[in-house]
């Protein structure tokens, strides 16, 4: 899989230190900007390698399916991409990743590289409001990468990239629903099972438990429920602007995503909330899991500007 991606995008990506599980943009290290590093288990494409490139990430450390990359991978990637202005670790809030990234950060600091860490924790199903720091990171990763990448491209300090990205994450919320499981290669069995006519609202991207399991409903009804829950967590007033990301967890086709997007557009029109720059497609997946997620990003002028900055990566090309 990794070799295939490198074969397909030889002008965009390269291996760091000859190690295939640490991938950097082809022109790395980029001097004069903060470097953005991410990583995590495989099985979520385009997360993570798909977003390595100009305007988004400097590098990604990739683990086995659903398993964190190693401390040493992260450390050697950090050294390979460091352009002199410090490194931001930006990844999903999962304990294995945290342990490996934290240990790498300690060792990078020992070698004189400044590192700051932001955990993406956008999944509202995984913990109640007021306890946001316990939430899991899902498709909101994409917006986090966009903001961090665009901000870093302005050549500002690590502290500023850190603060701006954190501010953006206060405005980003996701919620998913799954109707079938995926199977980790080598494990032999599906990670979980759902009844034929069941769905689970809030199911995590590794099959973690969500808010509720219920009988399947129509796409319109499910979408309406999900938008209600999202807006309860992230209130958006009339005339405010949001970017919307409708994401397939893997097996759900684009056709169905647009059915969902249609409903979202209708709901927001009724609420007089403006949608700015929607994204519909596969942005953060879970192998062949069927289902989708919706991410809302409440915008400001500053974040709109950053959303419009050019990016050039294997899976996203804009500007």
């Amino acid at each position: 899989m990794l070799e295939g991606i490198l074969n397909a995008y030889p002008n965009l990506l390269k291996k760091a230190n000859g190690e295939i599980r640490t991938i950097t943009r082809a022109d790395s290290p980029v001097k004069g900007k903060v470097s953005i590093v991410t990583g995590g288990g495989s099985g979520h494409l385009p997360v993570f390698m798909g977003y390595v490139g100009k305007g988004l990430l400097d590098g990604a450390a990739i683990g086995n399916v659903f398993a964190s990359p190693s401390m040493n991978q992260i450390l050697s990637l950090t050294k390979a991409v460091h352009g002199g202005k410090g490194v931001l670790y930006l990844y999903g809030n999962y304990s294995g990743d945290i342990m490996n990234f934290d240990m790498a950060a300690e060792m990078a600091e020992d070698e004189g590289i400044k590192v700051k860490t932001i955990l993406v924790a956008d999944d509202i199903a995984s913990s109640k409001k007021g306890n946001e720091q316990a939430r899991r990171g899902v498709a909101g990763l994409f917006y986090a990468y966009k903001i961090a990448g665009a901000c870093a491209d302005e050549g500002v300090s690590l502290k500023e990239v850190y603060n701006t990205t954190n501010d953006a994450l206060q405005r980003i919320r996701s919620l998913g629903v799954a109707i079938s499981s995926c199977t980790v290669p080598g494990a032999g069995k599906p990670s979980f099972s759902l009844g034929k006519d069941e769905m689970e609202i809030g199911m995590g991207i590794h099959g973690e438990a969500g808010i509720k399991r219920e009988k399947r409903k129509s796409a319109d009804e499910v979408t309406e429920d999900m938008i209600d829950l999202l807006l309860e967590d992230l209130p958006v007033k009339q005339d405010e602007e949001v970017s919307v990301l409708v994401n397939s967890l893997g097996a759900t086709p684009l056709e169905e995503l647009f059915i969902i997007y249609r409903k979202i557009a209708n709901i927001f029109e009724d609420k007089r909330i403006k949608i700015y720059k929607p994204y519909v497609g596969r942005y953060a997946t879970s192998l062949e899991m069927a289902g989708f997620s919706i991410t809302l990003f409440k915008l400001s002028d500053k974040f709109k500007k950053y959303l419009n900055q050019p990016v050039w990566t294997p899976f996203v090309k804009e500007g």
Partner: protein
Amino acid sequence: MNIILHQEDIKNIIVKLDDVFKKEKDFLNELDSKIGDGDHGLTMYRGTNAIAQYLEEYPDLKISDILIKGGFRVNEITGSTIGILIFSAMKAAGLAIKEKESINIKDIQKMLQDSIQAIEKRGKASKGQKTILDSLIPALESLEENNDETDDISTIKRMIKNAYDGAESTKNLESQIGRAKWFKNRSMGVMDPGAYTGYLILKTIGDYILKNQ
């Protein structure tokens, strides 16, 4: 009867661990699929296999380096939560006996104690949260009770039993930490795969000692 382990014994134990996790892989995956993503056995087997191969490449490492460099190798190959915890634990165990050419039961106690501390620190975990610590900590207690009057062999037997009972006790616990915490109510009644792994490691070490001393 006093236990003494040499470099050769440590290498033999690692080969045994590789065998044990090869055999137990499917059972551990099965446990993990109930409270996780079903690959814990696979990760552990990849890890033990990586150290076994590493030792074939570097057969002359001293005991502390087998643990420190071997642990690093486990994390390199597996990444993962258990991979970094095992690296942290093996590094701590290696540092506990640095420069020693043989280890006795007091060394084993210190190694386990330091390993547990390293896991607690890196994993921000404690006993009772349904983790590997729930088999390791009761096992350490049996070693702590060992003194000049007790027999090493009976201590090792108690260590194995305590580790097993500790792993079993996780059936009645809810996962509170790590990715498994998201399976809270589904985790009741299921033994924690990490705790069972802790038991398997100690049982393999213990069985080797009982057979060869």
